[in-house]
């Protein structure tokens, strides 16, 4: 390689990673638009959850077919990325297969990359078939109309092309390694359990043209990886990175435990304090904005909920287990997550366009994205939370938005208002007197 190649590669590397980190910074900024919530407790259990659920894929295999296929693609992704290190060093310094000095260990490495690449190709093809030919219900659900459906397929195509290029790269390399007497810098290195069957494709071509092909595949492969890496931000595929922090920061309490709003606790305590002055003005600290009850927009959600939204890969296991969705209601927990992300992105772009300040756009997550009808269909059964392979909680967002509807807008469905009035007046959701609570004892 001439120096021109190396310089070109270095520029590509800087642009690829630079643009990527720029977008990561945006994600970080947007997540921090959320309100504070403490998730620093119990680091031991948090690390364990991350190790089991994100690294160990323990929740994926609850659905064995998708689970096993996913583990193949996941392992392929992680292990084949070791090869990326060699590619980057080769690209920067003009070396060729710089790790080949490892000898037999190198053979094992390249050999396993090849086998994994083939397995990934197969797994990804099955994924494509499940989405486009078998058309599993959770993949043809209306949530995914438009870009999300194409997005899912683009990701699969990316993976197919990258794996194919990797194998073609090796096949052409192997062909040149086997030229009697050697050819150029193509030293004998690596084992090629898969691409040895592709190599005969190059028989009959001149060594020079095979070398040209080999370089073309090498470049296309690495450029493809950079493009894919930068596509992440625009796709549902961010889970490959965010699944780790997401499982780390996920809620550790029993699923049935909903948080008690602190702002409400303060007010209720004042109301119940016999020594409190009923006519006193609320003790407002200087410059403190009174807390809003519940959430009507993304800034009212906490940062973990916003991280959840970026992490969601739209697999739809939540929606496929949601009792409301299974019975034809509009609620889809997956759509709650997708809407939250879409709105968060919109707010982020607004901030970018207005020099770092959010200018109200007369839109909110509530109503413009998520309708009250969806929110009221939830049974709070936690099926969605249980199902999520990366511990996302659509339920917590639904609950926060219900709180806004009820406490800020008094917009509960009428029968619920009646239920709440009963609790207020007689301590039961029905119209029975509290004095009669023990009557059952003497009834037959």
């Amino acid at each position, binding site marked *: 390689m001439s120096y021109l190649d190396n310089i070109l590669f270095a520029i590509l590397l800087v642009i690829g990673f630079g643009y990527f980190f720029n977008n990561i910074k945006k994600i970080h900024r947007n997540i921090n638009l959320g309100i504070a919530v403490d998730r620093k407790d119990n680091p031991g259990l948090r690390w364990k959850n991350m190790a089991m659920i994100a690294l160990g894929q323990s929740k994926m295999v*609850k659905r064995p077919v998708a689970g096993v296929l996913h583990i193949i693609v996941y392992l392929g992704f992680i292990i084949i990325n070791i090869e990326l290190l060699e590619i980057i060093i080769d690209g920067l310094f003009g070396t060729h297969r710089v790790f080949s000095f490892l000898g037999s260990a190198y053979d094992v490495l390249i050999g396993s990359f090849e086998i994994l690449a083939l397995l990934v190709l197969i797994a990804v093809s099955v994924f494509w078939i499940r989405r486009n030919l078998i058309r599993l219900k959770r993949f043809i659900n209306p949530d995914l109309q438009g870009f999300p459906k194409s997005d899912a397929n683009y990701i699969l195509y990316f993976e197919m092309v990258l794996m194919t290029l990797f194998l073609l790269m090796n096949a052409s390399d192997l062909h040149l390694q086997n030229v009697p007497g050697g050819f150029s810098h193509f030293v004998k290195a690596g084992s090629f359990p898969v691409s040895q069957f592709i190599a005969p494709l190059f028989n009959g071509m001149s060594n020079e043209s095979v070398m040209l092909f080999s370089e073309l595949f090498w470049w296309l492969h690495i450029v493809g990886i950079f493009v894919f890496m930068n596509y992440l931000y625009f796709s549902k595929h961010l889970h490959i990175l965010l699944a780790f922090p997401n499982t780390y920061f996920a809620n550790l309490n*029993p*699923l*049935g*435990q*909903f948080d*008690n*709003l602190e702002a*409400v*606790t303060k*007010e*209720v305590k004042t109301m*119940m304090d016999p020594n409190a002055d009923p006519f006193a003005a609320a003790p407002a600290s200087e410059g403190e904005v009174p807390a809003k009850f*519940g959430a009507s927009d993304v800034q009212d959600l906490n940062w973990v909920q916003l991280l959840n939204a970026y992490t969601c890969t739209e697999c739809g296991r939540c929606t496929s*287990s949601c*009792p*409301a969705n*299974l*019975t*034809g*209601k*509009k609620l889809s927990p997956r759509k709650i997550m997708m809407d939250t992300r879409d709105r968060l992105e919109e707010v982020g772009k607004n901030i970018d366009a207005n020099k770092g300040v959010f200018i109200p756009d007369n839109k909110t997550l509530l109503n413009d994205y998520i309708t009250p*009808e969806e929110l*009221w*269909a*939830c*049974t*709070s*059964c*936690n*099926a969605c*939370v*249980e199902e999520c392979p990366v511990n996302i909680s659509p339920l917590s967002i639904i609950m926060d938005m219900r*709180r*806004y*509807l*009820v*406490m800020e807008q008094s917009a509960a*469905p009428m*029968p*619920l208002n*009646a*239920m*709440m009035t009963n*609790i207020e007046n007689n*301590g*039961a*959701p*029905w119209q*029975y007197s*509290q*004095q*009669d*609570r*023990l*009557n*059952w*004892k003497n*009834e*037959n």
Partner: protein
Amino acid sequence: MSENLIVPTMAEMLAQGKQPEVLFWVGCAGSFDDRAKKITKAFVRILNRSNVSFAVLGAEESCTGDPAKRAGNEFLFQMQAMMNIEVLNAYEAKKIVTACPHCFNTLKNEYPELGGKYEVIHHTEFLKSLLDDGRLTIEGGQFKGKRITFHDPCYLGRANNVYEAPRDLILKLDAELLEMKRSKANGLCCGAGGAQMFKDAEPGNKEVNVLRTEDALETKPEIIAAACPFCNTMMTDGIKNKEKEQEVKVMDIAELIANAQDL
């Protein structure tokens, strides 16, 4: 027939200078709903038979605030919670048992932060412990070989990971325990949770309780066992919807145990 149920209140206990072993939180459904009152009584019969020292709050009990909280009314919930906590703390309650998973979840998980710290157990766990300690024995084979399927209440199962106690009890009856295709952590809601019990369902193509009843009927059960008064109502309505009242009964675990003992 007048039953001799012994149901002391905490106030009566206090007047005698006694502290019961456990406080029985009856809950609104258990106090007022006709179907649920039968469950309450069945549970009390077992407590009486096992000589468990217990007491209820009676007219001093009030809604835990669970349906208000799930509906989004945090104010009302915390008002209820703090009033109940005042009463419970005044009686120095330590251990609470309840037959309602919603009360169970709220008392166990959401009260501590507001100052109400108790050991809270569901009645299926309590019955299991009575059996394990030999304070309760199940004899007679009334349910021997009966096909019984258990519907996991969301707020007992997924919400609090109690899956085995109710199943252990069914197995103690020598019954044949049938699992639905969706059970335990994958169980399907009956449709009552999240305050849905108190409102109409949103437009859809089916009622959740009917879907869940279909799950249950697939196991060809003679009895659908429930462990929650609301699930009980939903499944009973589902069975009516399917016109299977003659073949399939919906019963609470406490009723199964009480019946097995001819109580």
